[in-house]
């Protein structure tokens, strides 16, 4: 393989790396953060361009088959760029008003993106781990970014310690896999596992440790405990980032390791994923009911959404993957919109925190209230928003696979979930206005509100015409194998 092919495949990552380092250096002596914002957005655009240049129907590998470019990597990478771009637009005014808007933020998000890209394109246990650590370290730092707030530092500490434990689990699983198969390369692991002489107990241990490591990154129950604290403790833009873009890396990691590497163990990891899916859906939705803080509520909502994704993936079928890919894209779009709305409604010093802070929104800011209505209807999965179609396709894949009861539980848990989503809408529209909203300044800039509006309306538009997104997801998942 020539150097030029190597470069073509990895060119988006190289660009991101260069951009991340440049932004880091520029940020030191160059205080015009607006241009750093521009550079980062431009980087995303260029990276997206080069990613889109790669062929979708051919699997290209590089660096001794450590690195792969296929349909999955293209789908997830493009979504990551898009999501990060939105995150940056939403974050800017918030960070500026809190004196957090500096070069480090952009450098850290770019490094995190590099980690995400690496994980997405990894075809080797070591490169997966490398990408994962690059992502995680960036995230820990980002959580502690608002270092003057004790909650942020505390959240970062918890995230770091628990993340380290999870990384330990994952590494331990990797080492056992290496011990059994003698290889770290995913395709090779897969082919060597077909050998029947392998010790099944060790293999089970390896599988459990790997799956638990992945589940932690997703925030699936019972490995979800970091999620609410980190969501609540971080500054809202950081929460938005953590809740959205890294999920693409998690799903890639799951598909690469379980579907491509441990595909012979499908019956075993299927059971694990199914259990975690059910526990996550029920735990997330039930616990969310008792929440009074909006970010915490969204954290539990995220856990339940991960449960839905796991349910689709647990089927192990192409339709299952397709529905999960659809779900994750939709989920990220909804997450961005919901946190975007929180940022939009937060003003200097005072963040939107309690659910009751939203009361009277319908009268004071009808358009915001309408956007809120759409976002939460979509999160709840009520047609004609896209959230409905996403849940629908997961449940459909589950039933097609023959799992009736898991599908019933999914519907029941979604039903429970509707309660707390609708409660927020009820507070916004029917409760008497509190005094909090009056303080909400009109300083929110236009680019934020326009982006938010487009983002939210797209939930409705895609919901009315879901087939094109679903087609892309189906195509992507069909080309993975």
């Amino acid at each position, binding site marked *: 393989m020539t150097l030029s092919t190597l470069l073509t495949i990895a060119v988006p990552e190289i660009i991101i790396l260069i951009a991340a380092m440049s932004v880091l250096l520029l940020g030191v002596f160059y205080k015009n953060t607006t241009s750093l914002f521009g550079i980062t957005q431009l980087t995303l655009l260029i990276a997206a361009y080069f990613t889109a240049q790669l062929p979708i129907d051919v699997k290209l590998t590089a660096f001794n088959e450590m690195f792969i470019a296929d349909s999955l990597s293209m789908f997830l990478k493009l979504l990551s760029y898009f999501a990060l771009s939105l995150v940056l637009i939403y974050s800017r005014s918030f960070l500026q008003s809190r004196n957090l808007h500096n070069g480090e933020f952009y450098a850290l998000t770019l490094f995190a993106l590099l980690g995400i890209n690496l994980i997405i394109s990894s075809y080797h246990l070591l490169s997966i781990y490398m990408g994962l650590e690059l992502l995680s370290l960036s995230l820990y730092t980002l959580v502690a970014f608002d270092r003057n707030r004790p909650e942020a530092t505390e959240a970062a500490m918890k995230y770091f310690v628990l993340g380290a434990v999870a990384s330990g689990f994952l590494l331990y699983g990797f080492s056992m896999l290496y011990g059994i198969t003698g290889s770290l390369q995913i395709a090779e692991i897969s082919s060597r596992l077909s050998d029947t002489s392998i010790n099944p107990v060790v293999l089970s241990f390896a599988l459990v440790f790997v799956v638990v490591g992945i589940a932690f990154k997703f925030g699936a129950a019972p490995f979800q*405990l970091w999620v609410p604290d980190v969501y609540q403790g971080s500054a809202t833009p950081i929460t938005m980032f953590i809740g959205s873009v890294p999920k693409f890396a998690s799903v890639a990691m799951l598909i690469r390791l379980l579907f491509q590497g441990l595909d012979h163990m499908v019956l075993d990891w299927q059971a694990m994923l199914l259990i975690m899916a059910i526990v996550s859906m029920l735990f997330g939705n039930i616990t969310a009911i008792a929440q009074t803080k909006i970010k915490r509520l969204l954290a539990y909502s995220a856990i339940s959404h991960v449960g839905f994704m796991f349910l689709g993936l647990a089927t192990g079928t192409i339709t299952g993957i397709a529905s999960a890919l659809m779900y994750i894209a939709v989920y990220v779009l909804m997450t961005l919109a919901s946190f975007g709305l929180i940022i939009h409604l937060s003003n200097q010093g005072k963040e939107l925190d309690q659910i009751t802070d939203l009361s009277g929104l319908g009268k004071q800011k009808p358009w915001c209230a309408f956007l809120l209505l759409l976002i939460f209807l979509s999160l709840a999965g009520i047609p004609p928003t896209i959230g409905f179609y996403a849940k629908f396709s997961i449940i459909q894949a589950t039933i097609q696979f023959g799992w009736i009861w898991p599908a019933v539980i999914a519907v029941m848990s979604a039903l*429970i979930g509707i309660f707390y989503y609708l409660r927020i809408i009820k507070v916004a529209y029917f409760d008497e206005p509190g005094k909090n909203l009056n303080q909400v300044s009109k300083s929110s800039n236009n680019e934020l509100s326009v982006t938010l509006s487009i983002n939210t309306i797209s939930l409705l538009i895609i919901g009315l015409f879901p087939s094109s997104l679903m087609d892309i997801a189906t195509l992507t998942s069909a080309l993975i194998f």
Partner: protein
Amino acid sequence: MTLMKLYTLIPMMPLIASIVIGLFGRQLPKVFSHLIPIVLVLGSFLLSLYALYISYHGYVFNENLFRWMTVGQYDLNIGFMVDNLTALMMSVVTFVSLMVHIYTIEYMENDPGYSRFFSFISLFTFAMLMLVMSNNFLQLFFGWEAVGLVSYLLIGFWYKKPTAIHANMKAFLVNRVGDFGFLLGIALIMFYFGTLDYKEVFSRVDTLAGQEFMLMGSSVSLVTLISILLFIGAMGKSAQVPLHVWLPDSMEGPTPISALIHAATMVTAGIFLVTRVSPIVELSNTALSLILIVGSITALFMGILGIFQNDIKRVVAYSTLSQLGYMTIALGVSSYSLAMFHLFTHAFFKALLFLGAGSVIIGMHHDQNIMNMGNLKKYMPITWITFLLATLALVGMPFFSGFYSKESIIEAVKYSEIVGSSFAYFAAVFGVFITSLYSFRLYFIVFHGEERWRNKPISHNHHDHGLTTNQSPHETTWVVIMPLILLAIPSVLIGFFTIEPIIKSSFLLKDIFILNSHLALSQVTEHFHGPINMALHALATLPFWLMVLGFIVAYLLYYKNINFIKTPKILKKVMDHKYGFDNFNEYILAPLTIRLGNVLWKYMDIKIIDNFFVNGSAKTINLFSHITKKIQTGFISQYAFVMVIGLLLFISYFILGGKS
């Protein structure tokens, strides 16, 4: 531009108009509220004519625009099929819609909901076009519901008027009954064919023959069941007995929509539907007989009611019911093209009658009671002459458009041998007399005789509409008159010029399926010797003289005021109660339903569902959520502990569960 884009543009233009006016109508100057919809609907009309031109030359367009979604193995598509049948409907819909758009400028001039009204009627045009242009049952159903929705919104347009709200609720509920049947029919089609695409369903329709379906323990022919279910949908929308009760009340809405929705287009959707599914309906003689009998009852008995109405719009509404009955009769004797023909001519003269009635209403300052009118001929000459032309078309005066379509239907019934055709023939022929009677009654009372408003008791109620005794009505302006004239032309002429292609050539027939054993239409074709011969021959037939008789009776009773027959009290009572359909619904059906609802509510809802399932499970879940919340202690050590426990559980699941 490809044909697909062109056809997409046809429904899109009214939709765009509707959205723009609906969202920004109040901000824009008032003139845009009518200008934008009129221009776009005009464009839509011109393109529809082009579509008619293309399909007339034999090109049937059938393509999917996009796949809306996939459910399992079923693809749900949005697409268009434009054959002659569709193109004809499109042209009628857009033409009448255009006329009504123009007419509305004056009719709604001082209404605060001016732009809202235009937004609704454009939206209606879009929905109706989607309905007729559909190439599958799903889109048809969406269009069907959408026109129903807009009809609901427009009947209750004056939402502060309690009668209007009552009427739109009634229309909504009655249509729900029909739609339920329709939806079941569609579901059966989906179940047996696995697709909702017209072309595929119709190509495999012969596999239905002989199939049985178990319904409540007894087996019924599948094709009959599907046909009847679909026809129940048609009955709701096309207001056939007993689902007709909503149409007279729908006159509470503004007159332009009575012309557009409740005369020319939406109510004919049922006729269009049955024509479209002719390959299915044809296979079931039982269904055809049912259609025929329902149509006959509607045609005759609803016409009789028209004689006893004093509200100008209600007379025309009962006339619409009766004419829809004629179309249904034509469907019942497998003469689908004749039903479409009558639909086509009826759209023009009935829209004209309604718009003429609206013009009268404007002249009378929104008084609709014909007993306050009289001698309007003197004050509103153009309204008078166009109204007269429409009346002549309606009663079936030879050479007028209504004559050709109605006479062909009567002919077809005569030749039909299906069960119920003798009753239908009686109903259709006697109906001619009835039609003539109520039409000329209305005409003489409104346009001739004394000027009754001059001696009506003086009302001190300021909310009362109408002229005071010393005012005179005057002719409306050109925006009202122009549509009247433009509609009068086809009302008079179109039958003469189109009967030949419809009866002789296969203009519509190639889009319709008729079994060879159903001879009625081919007999009509055989006995047809040109429009002039047909009109001259009519002078020697019974329907013509019945029509003349109706005219004479109306002339004596309402022009000369000779009361040579007295309506028996009992008959008058029956008529006042409109055969008791409303009473039945109001005093028997509704209370029973409410009582049943009460029982279900008290025992099922409150005791079982509310207390046990809803509140019970809500309480349980709430309890759980406060327990699970406690897991979140905030201590890292405990979090890590939980993680390790989870890990151990999974490992023991594999080791102890003997999985490995």
